[in-house]
């Protein structure tokens, strides 16, 4: 049997391709929207994966250190270290700071860690220049996106810091570039008051011991121990909140990104609906243009199924071509976006399924027009 859909498309190939490209750009935006969400999840997990701790011990009744503020004493790491099943434990700080830069200040997320400790948050695979921190003071490792170079001097608080290393693709869950400083420096920046304020506090009888605080204590578990059991034991005896790596990921991805994901999800759904409506309108117009031929075919006695088959095939082909163009468009543009966009094959296949269903739904308007076409229109003027 003659493939009417293929013949019709061949006949108006240029118009069909331009139309498919237009719809394809919409679908490309859908893919990029999904990619933005994937990028947010990936960014949220970068720091967690690089630190690679099994347990996050934070202030009781908080979801720290990222979702909520958390303060614990630095020496908690020593108490945690002797808990049965703990292999390593270290204290860390996390804070947003603004680095002065000759063009414009750069907002970054600073990770403070014990330079001589056993858990190092800098993933050496991401280190593209220089080295990790080696001394307890006035050294900083920055992400390439901050624009700083090795040996640059950056004023933070009362002191100048020297850039000793540069990393790539290191961002916080909020999308800010990461920088790494020593725990001592970080504690000073976060907790140490100015001299005048210290004098003032002492005059009021307030002791300034807060510089020995940290935001979290991290721990890894020895082989053969159950992470949940060790976490439960710390919760019970230390009166702290303890999160496993997975729970911390869930806090970041499910809680922190949830609103963004809902917003992106809604935006994506609207775009899919708009694409479906546009495909339906295109098919409706294409069917209207063929009404005389359809009336003739019906008058000659061709069954509706043959004509409907043509309309559905054309709609599906439009959807498939638009999907291909959408993928090409998204792959050519995704790296031009300022935030990380992660295009994943399963997302593309899901969109393909959605587009096939949407195309079938969209073809109904054309099919309805075919069914209602009067063969008598073919005769007479």
């Amino acid at each position, binding site marked *: *049997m*003659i493939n009417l859909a293929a013949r019709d498309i061949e006949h108006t190939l240029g118009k069909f391709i331009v139309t498919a490209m237009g719809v394809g750009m919409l679908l490309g935006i859908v893919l990029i929207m999904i990619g933005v969400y994937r990028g947010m999840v990936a960014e949220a997990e970068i720091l967690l994966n690089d630190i690679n701790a099994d347990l996050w011990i934070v202030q009781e009744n908080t979801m720290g250190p990222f979702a909520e503020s958390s303060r614990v004493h630095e020496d908690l790491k020593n108490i945690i270290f002797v808990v049965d099943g703990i292999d390593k434990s270290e204290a860390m700080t996390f804070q947003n700071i603004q680095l002065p830069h000759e063009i414009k200040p750069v907002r970054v997320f600073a990770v403070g860690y014990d330079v001589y400790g056993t858990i190092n948050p800098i993933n050496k695979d991401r280190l593209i220049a220089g080295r990790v921190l080696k001394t307890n003071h006035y050294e900083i490792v920055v992400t390439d996106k901050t624009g700083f170079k090795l040996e640059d001097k950056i004023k933070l608080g009362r002191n100048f810091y020297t850039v000793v290393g540069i990393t790539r693709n290191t961002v916080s869950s909020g999308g800010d570039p990461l920088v790494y400083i020593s725990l001592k420096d970080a504690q000073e920046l976060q907790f140490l008051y100015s001299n005048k304020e210290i004098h003032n506090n002492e005059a009021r009888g307030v002791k300034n011991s807060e510089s020995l605080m940290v935001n979290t204590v991290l721990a890894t578990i020895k082989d053969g121990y159950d992470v949940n059991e060790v976490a439960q034991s710390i919760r019970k005896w230390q009166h702290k909140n303890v999160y496993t790596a997975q729970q911390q990921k869930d806090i970041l991805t499910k809680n922190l990104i949830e609103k963004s994901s809902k917003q992106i999800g809604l935006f994506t759904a609207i775009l899919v609906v708009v694409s479906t409506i546009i495909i339906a309108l295109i098919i409706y117009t294409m069917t209207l243009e063929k009404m005389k031929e359809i009336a003739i*075919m019906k*008058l000659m006695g061709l069954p509706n199924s043959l004509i409907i088959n043509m309309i559905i095939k054309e709609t599906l082909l439009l959807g498939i071509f638009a999907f291909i163009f959408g993928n090409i468009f998204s792959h050519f543009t995704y790296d031009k976006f300022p935030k990380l966009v992660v295009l994943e094959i399963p997302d593309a296949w899901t969109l393909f399924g959605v587009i096939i269903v949407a195309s079938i739904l969209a073809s109904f308007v054309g099919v309805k027009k075919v069914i209602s076409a009067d063969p*008598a229109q073919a005769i*007479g003027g």
Partner: protein
Amino acid sequence: MNQQIAIKVKNLVKNFGKDENLVKVIENASFEIKKGEVVALIAPSGAGKTTLLMMIGCVIEPTSGEIWLGEDMVYKDKWMAKDTRRIRREKIGFIFQAHYLIPFLNVLENITLLPQANKVSEKDAQKKAMELLKYLEIDDKAYNMSSQLSGGQNQRVAIARALANNPEIILADEPTAALDGERAVSVIKMLKKIASEQNVAIITVTHDERILPYCDRIMKIQNRGIVFHDSDEKQIL
């Protein structure tokens, strides 16, 4: 029914509207058309030529009466078959005022579309289409698109398409209206030849006086009824 009768219409009535809006178009029309006969259907505009043609073609439902196509009664106060489209597909060929070939199909595909819908294999449908194109002296255009043909060539392709499903009846709606005198006569001669050689009954609606001498009989709608004239009668229109 006589085996030589291709179309039999008995007491056919067609009204449009109801009550005070009732418009009577055809009243108690009865006639028979034999196989191999070419009959011109004439009447002033709005008299119901196309309506009558479409009732015979099972496109418009009559109000009452009987229609026989060959041996089969297709209408007696209601359609006798649920699928009137199938009757059209198997028994009737249509030719229109313009060729109305499907623009995205080539000549051969236009002709083979209907037979293939009738479950004829692609190979057999193409063989028959090529025979028809040869018969109509246009076989060199088999793979051309209709936009590449002249008006006369397109109308010959339309005739080939109407013949492709071996119909017993051809219904033509002013097939020469868009053609100049020479081509109009050529087309009606061709229809005449087809009618006699392939034993097909042809009804052609026309306003074209030039083609009347080539028709066997002239059927005129007059006062909502049917009156027959011989083709050599003068002053019919």
